[in-house]
């Protein structure tokens, strides 16, 4: 395998560890002992974790009193938030969840079989909320389509009509790509993940609004102010902090870069495909979407095969979201958007990271056109 030399057009799956992150963490790794230890070895680790916490707080615009709880990843964050909101819920209760959620949210919601699960299009969520609702959840940006949803609008409605209902948002894909202002989101909890912005994988965070009720999912020691037991993933958390700092410092320039890349790529792709008379359809083009994500359908062409052809050319893309078993299934997100099973299997997701160079963009595009 030509390991190493490939073009990452699959940044929504994992951004890739930023060199600055790897360098800073690995050069200091031996200094960090157990952050719960009272001695100085522990104090160094504790201080580094607190620094990381502040970086993340700043990045998402959380208040000083909001809780930033480090977890093993956004899946754990969402599981914690959802099970906390539903603790004590009875058969009369319901939860309201969009049909385009990531499995981390969707499957968790479905697992509470005692509670009525009201799943529908993001636009119709507010109609489903009533006084028996125990949770409203909507993602800020979708991992597959890149679509950005009006979370703030929905949650404002919920909070002004049913102030007691907990609101949760999966902000994993939005982090670093659209501005997140925790205060203005009116979410009680949000989930974010480190590896989507260039940190190591295996670290995430759950942000809990000051004053929101929270019941921990994982019990044990007093770590994370008793919100999440278990020895902290110190190196992971530090990496998350550094990546968050970079994401904040470079935010504006990255957005400009993303937009330029997406515009150049889609324009060039359209003209090439039109010239070669290859049928295509750029999805969600005029909708509010992530600046780094391009969603294209090639009618008559199986995206799984195209993915392999591109992989063998050294270009990494995705057809649907990453799946651990490797067995491809039709995306529930695309089906929710009205694509047929067959159409859903013809869709390719191209997602850049901010480090993608223009030469890579050009040769990736060339490879794509060649494989079609």
């Amino acid at each position, binding site marked *: *395998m030509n390991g190493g030399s490939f073009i990452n057009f699959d940044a929504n799956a994992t951004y890739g560890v930023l060199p600055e992150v790897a360098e800073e963490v690995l050069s200091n790794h031996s200094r960090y002992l157990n952050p719960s230890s009272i001695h100085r070895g522990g104090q160094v680790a504790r201080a580094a974790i607190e620094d990381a916490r502040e970086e993340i707080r700043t990045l998402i615009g959380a208040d000083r009193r909001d809780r930033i709880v480090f977890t093993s990843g956004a899946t754990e964050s969402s599981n914690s938030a959802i099970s906390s909101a539903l603790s004590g819920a009875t058969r009369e209760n319901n939860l309201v969840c969009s049909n385009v959620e990531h499995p981390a949210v969707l499957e968790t919601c479905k697992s509470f079989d005692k509670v009525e699960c009201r799943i529908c299009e993001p636009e119709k969520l507010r109609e489903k909320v009533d006084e028996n609702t125990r949770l409203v959840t909507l993602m800020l940006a979708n991992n597959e389509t890149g679509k950005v949803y009006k979370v703030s609008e929905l949650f404002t409605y919920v909070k002004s009509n049913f102030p007691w209902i907990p609101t949760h948002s999966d902000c994993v894909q939005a982090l670093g790509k659209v501005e997140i202002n925790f205060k203005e989101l009116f979410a009680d909890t949000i989930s974010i993940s480190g590896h989507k912005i260039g940190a190591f994988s295996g670290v995430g965070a759950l942000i809990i609004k000051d004053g929101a009720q929270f019941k921990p999912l994982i019990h044990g020691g007093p770590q994370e102010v008793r919100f999440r037991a278990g020895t902290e993933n110190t190196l992971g958390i530090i990496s998350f902090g550094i990546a968050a700092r970079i994401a904040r410092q470079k935010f504006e320039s990255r957005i400009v870069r993303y937009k330029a890349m997406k515009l150049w790529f889609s324009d060039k792709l359209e003209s090439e495909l039109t010239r070669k008379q290859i049928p295509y359809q750029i999805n969600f083009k005029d909708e509010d979407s992530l600046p780094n994500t391009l969603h294209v359908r090639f009618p008559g062409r199986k995206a*799984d095969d195209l993915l*392999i052809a591109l992989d*063998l050319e050294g270009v990494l893309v995705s057809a649907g979201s990453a799946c651990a078993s490797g*067995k491809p299934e039709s995306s529930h997100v695309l089906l929710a958007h009205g694509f047929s099973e067959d159409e859903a299997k013809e869709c390719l997701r191209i997602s850049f990271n901010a480090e993608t160079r223009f030469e890579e963009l050009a040769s990736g595009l060339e490879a794509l056109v060649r*494989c079609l």
Partner: protein
Amino acid sequence: MLMRVVVAMSGGVDSSVAALLLKEKGVEAVGVSMQVWDYRNNGGCLSRATCCAPDDFTDARKTASKIGIPYYVFDFEKTFKSEVIDKFVDSYNKGITPNPCIDCNSKVKFKELRERARSFGANSVATGHYAQIKEVDGRLRLYRGADREKDQSYFLYSITYEELKETSFPVGHLTKPEVRKLAEGAGLPTADKPESQDICFVSGKNSDFIARIGKPPAGYLVSTTGERLGAHDGIHEFTVGQRKGIKIGGLYEPLYVVEIRPESNEVVVGTKKDLEREKFFIKDFAFLYPDEDRFEGTIQVRSRHRGSPAKVEIVDGGAWVTLTEESCVIAPGQAAVFYNGDELLGGGRIGRA
């Protein structure tokens, strides 16, 4: 341009070494496992060690990574269900011996896999079968594997000449111990993996698998003269030639299933002699070089049969086989494969007597 070859990896040692040998030859090998059956939703046990179970994908993935080739899983559940499983179940319900491995080779491995391989520029499919393809007198020929004990050419008889051109069997010239040694030498994780013996999608008995899908009714065991000898729980528990599981005692000679009558749910039992034939008809005849209509050679009527001398005459809709030296125990539905020496010429399915 580098030749791109898809190698079907089951997670066993043979296909692992096939991939290894391709890579060593400088071919651009692409490892592929075929998801053919959803074990989770079909009462399968996830931990069992046969081919195509999820653990085998892990082994195949580890092997591909060790060798340094890309690896993907293809979903062939739909084709496998219609072309292999449904036929398997249908055969049992009709009292015909099923051949799922042959159906899988012809409809899945050498058809759908090949089509998908083409879509990303791979124009050849390699498998870990013990069989050999050689060019002799200007044409490609299919031979038995060099390891006569492991030879799997029998399961490949329906391959077409066009398919042969785009196929390779990288371990066909080796013996099993040699294959294991190569795997060991390269440190492949599958080097000491046990053989898979059973049908890949069946965990336990075939009859239990059929019963889960739809159990045929109970019926009688009868003699060749029509006399009722006992009862049975359904014809799916029997195949022609079977000796075990016939619950009738007190007879001198061992009893065999000699015929299954699905219309009356009768299982006819008799002696070995009642199973033997000197002449029989084979249908769905596939032949690699259709330029002659009479041959002499060896016919093999079961995967473990050593072969018997025979004459074959191709007629409309099939071929007549006449055994020249000895009679053979045959079962309808079973593949009969025709060889000249070690060269495979063609084959078909044995028709009802």
